[in-house]
């Protein structure tokens, strides 16, 4: 998986944002409102998607990749879902298999749902509340990646995490078949719980689904499409679910294609060629650098570019020389030419230089840059303009780390390797002896997390889970995310600053009661932590989708990217 797989999980916060935008009525970028009504004249045909590699297990409780979450949107449903709509509206949470948004009681600790009636799984079995309870227990039984981070707040989850095999959520998920009601009990109020219930790990599977990772065996779906066959080396086939009837146009509208084929094992450049020649409808992998100009000129009408709230950044190990010295880390921040890195990524249309931790248009984001020519972390400029090599050199000298060896660990795909080579050049020019260490993209992400591997600096990416500042600052720089000697230690800088951590807890507390105050605090925390420079942020990337000339009705979801079920080929 070359492309980073972080996904978006909006919270109440984004719902509030949308609400305020709509209420204010002054939103110039008219937040879209759902899909146009279904038009049967465009139904039919096969949509062919191409990718270099499959994304592993097809089990929706296991898979945690953007590649398949895009497909689950059109096939599986949870009690709640993300709205089919353009722009910010795609972050809106709507009732899906539940009849309405949950009724909150008990100080936000109890959520009550009513299940829709008359829905059947793609194997013909009716959907019942028993399936709902079994699906929540299944999260723990199959050791879902987010079992411990998203669903640990359900009553009884702690026991399930310890002994998954015998997981029972009798107190956490209480169902009543007569009333079709589902009551979810939480240990503590959680402002992000509705988001967590809307993502694929919380979808409803039949109670008969295997209590282990189903792997390549498809599990019956509820949405307009079901999985017919899956061979990770060749092909994934989705066909219409014969039992599907549209129950909510916002949550799960009828789809257009009669069949969706996902072909694997096609190199990115061959994917582009296939789409140009109308042999496929869409390219999954990032477009190779040498094809960008071609598709931007000859096929401009088939290109869709959308902003992402994400960053490319350089985590620096704050526990290892030379980057255990704050001056050395600041030197890197001053030295990197962010415009040059944007060039490597594909030019200014596909990325923008930044040096704040929170991406532009993200809650809490403040336009500032402490590491550009003529600015300091205490007197930041508005935006990044140019690197300051002279200052970087003198900082390295002051730090006394000049002449030290620095290893840069990058993925071995072309763009990441180029970033590494560029970075090496920069580090050498400010007084280090740098080497690039490109390693397979499949292990780089876990490799750079483990302190055993003594990684000094690396190139990594982060895509939002949900638009809340805590997902960037607390997840990536919080003490809780740092576990020495573990491959799962997302705080790659190993940065643990107790007072800063306490401030972040305070900001998260504001999130429930006073989001505006919370975001102001996050903005200050961003600037505060960047004075310490545990990382260097390089740029914020954009999503480029390239579709074939016959592919119409392209819509982009901030949550799951392209709406595959809405593509029209007729």
């Amino acid at each position: 998986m070359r492309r980073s797989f972080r996904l978006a999980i909006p919270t109440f916060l984004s719902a509030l944002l949308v609400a305020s935008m709509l209420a204010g009525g002054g939103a110039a970028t008219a937040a879209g409102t759902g899909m146009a009504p279904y038009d049967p004249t465009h139904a039919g045909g096969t949509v062919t998607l191409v990718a270099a590699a499959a994304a592993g297990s097809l089990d929706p409780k296991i898979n945690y990749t953007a590649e398949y979450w895009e497909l689950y949107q059109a096939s599986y449903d949870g009690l709640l879902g993300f709205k089919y709509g353009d722009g910010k509206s795609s972050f809106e949470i709507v009732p899906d298999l539940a009849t309405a948004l949950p009724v909150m009681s008990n100080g936000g600790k109890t959520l009550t749902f009513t299940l829709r009636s008359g829905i059947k799984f793609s194997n013909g079995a009716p959907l019942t509340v028993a399936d709902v309870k079994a699906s929540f227990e299944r999260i723990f039984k199959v050791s879902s990646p987010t079992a411990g981070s998203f669903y640990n707040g359900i009553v009884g989850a702690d026991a399930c995490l310890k002994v998954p095999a015998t997981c029972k959520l009798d107190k956490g998920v209480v169902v009543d078949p007569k009333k079709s009601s589902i009551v979810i009990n939480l240990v503590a109020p959680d402002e992000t719980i509705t988001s967590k219930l809307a993502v694929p790990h919380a979808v409803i599977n039949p109670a008969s689904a295997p209590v282990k990772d189903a792997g390549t065996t498809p599990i019956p779906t509820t949405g307009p499409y079901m999985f017919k066959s899956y061979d990770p080396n060749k092909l994934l086939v989705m066909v219409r679910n014969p039992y599907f009837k549209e129950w909510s146009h916002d949550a799960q509208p009828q789809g257009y294609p009669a069949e969706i084929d996902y072909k694997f094992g096609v190199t990115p450049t061959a994917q582009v060629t296939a789409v140009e020649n109308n042999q496929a409808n869409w390219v999954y992998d990032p477009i190779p650098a040498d094809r960008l100009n071609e598709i931007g000129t000859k096929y401009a009408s088939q290109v869709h570019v959308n902003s992402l709230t994400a960053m490319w950044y350089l985590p620096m190990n704050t526990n290892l020389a030379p980057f255990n010295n704050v001056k050395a880390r600041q030197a890197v921040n001053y030295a990197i030419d962010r415009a040059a890195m944007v060039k490597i990524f594909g030019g200014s249309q596909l990325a923008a230089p930044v040096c704040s931790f929170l991406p532009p248009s993200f809650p809490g984001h403040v336009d500032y840059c402490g590491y550009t020519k003529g600015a300091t972390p205490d007197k930041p400029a508005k935006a990044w303009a140019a690197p300051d090599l002279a200052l970087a050199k003198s900082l390295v000298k002051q730090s006394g780390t000049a002449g030290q060896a620095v290893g840069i660990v990058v993925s071995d795909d072309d763009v990441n390797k180029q970033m590494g080579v560029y970075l090496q050049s920069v580090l050498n020019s400010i007084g280090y002896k740098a080497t690039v260490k490109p390693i397979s993209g499949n292990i780089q992400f876990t490799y750079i997390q483990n302190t055993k591997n003594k990684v000094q600096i690396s190139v990594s990416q982060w895509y939002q889970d949900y638009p809340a500042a805590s997902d960037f600052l607390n997840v990536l720089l919080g003490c809780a995310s740092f576990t020495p000697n573990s491959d799962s230690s997302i705080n790659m800088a190993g940065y643990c600053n107790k007072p800063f951590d306490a401030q972040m807890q305070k900001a998260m507390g504001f999130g429930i009661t006073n989001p505006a105050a919370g975001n102001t605090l996050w903005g200050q925390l961003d600037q505060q932590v960047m004075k310490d420079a545990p990382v260097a942020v390089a740029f914020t990337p954009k999503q480029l989708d390239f579709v074939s000339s016959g592919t119409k009705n392209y819509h982009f979801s901030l949550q799951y990217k392209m709406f595959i079920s809405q593509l029209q080929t007729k």
Partner: protein
Amino acid sequence: MIAFIGRRFSAMIFVLVSISILVFLIFFATPGVDPAARIAGRNADQQTLMQVRHSFELDKPLPVRYLSMMRHLFISRDLTSYVNRGAKVIPQLSQAIPATLSLVIGAAIIWLLFGITFGVLAASSKRKWLDPTISFLGIVGVSLPVFWLGEVVNLVTQSKLHTSVFRWVPPLGYVGLSVNPWQWFLHLIFPWLTLAVLYAGIYVRVLRSEILVVMSEDYIKTERAKGASEKRILYKHATRMSLITIVSLFGLDFGALVGGYALLTEVVFGIQGVGKLTFDSLQNFDLPVIMATVMYASFFVVFMNAVVDVLYAVLDPRVRRA
């Protein structure tokens, strides 16, 4: 003779076992390959990580893990991938074999055709310019990096000239023979040619020099003295004798290629054969698949080696005592 064959084949088993152990040890000695965190998913909490490690037996000692993997691979035959969980390894391998066979057999026909024709021509032609020309082409053939040639072929047929001369060339990939024979042929024609270039070069060179060696043997001189025609000597004796070398060479090459040594060609042309499977599993650090493909490949290589050795022993009794 039976004893020799017995010894040769028990040695073969020894080699296969050593390779499997080496692969296993090298894999787990590589830093950063521990699959647990990759299986568990990003930012998984430490408890989930432990459960995954336990369910994949990654918390057991190495010898136990090795034996368990071998049991799943050879006895219960239900070994599953670390990366595409639930994907059984053996069906993946058996599904990849037809593509590899299609590629290798087609290429072999081409290279044998060219290799033998031009090899004999080079060794026998009366035309002064023919031998140096063929020899030169042979040298170029063996000097081309296959993956580079493949990429250049792709550049020309898929892009630069795709709108004119090569309009008929389908996208990269593989279409099964039973699915559509004509598409099968079109998809494979350039991979065949690319792979065949190297081997045609080798076979031309080997055959040419073998024929020349045989032609200078005493018995040929005797034949010639007896008044046999040059044509008869060339085809009846020299070519036939030289073909023995070609056949044994072919055995080794074919075994290696069927085993997945056409890796680079398969990768460049996107053919989902054994080589591509090996390549992908190496990229993914997917040990179960690596192990299966390596065992499969080494079996073919070692087996063909043993067969060729036995054949030589049949032909030359001195070897048997060695």
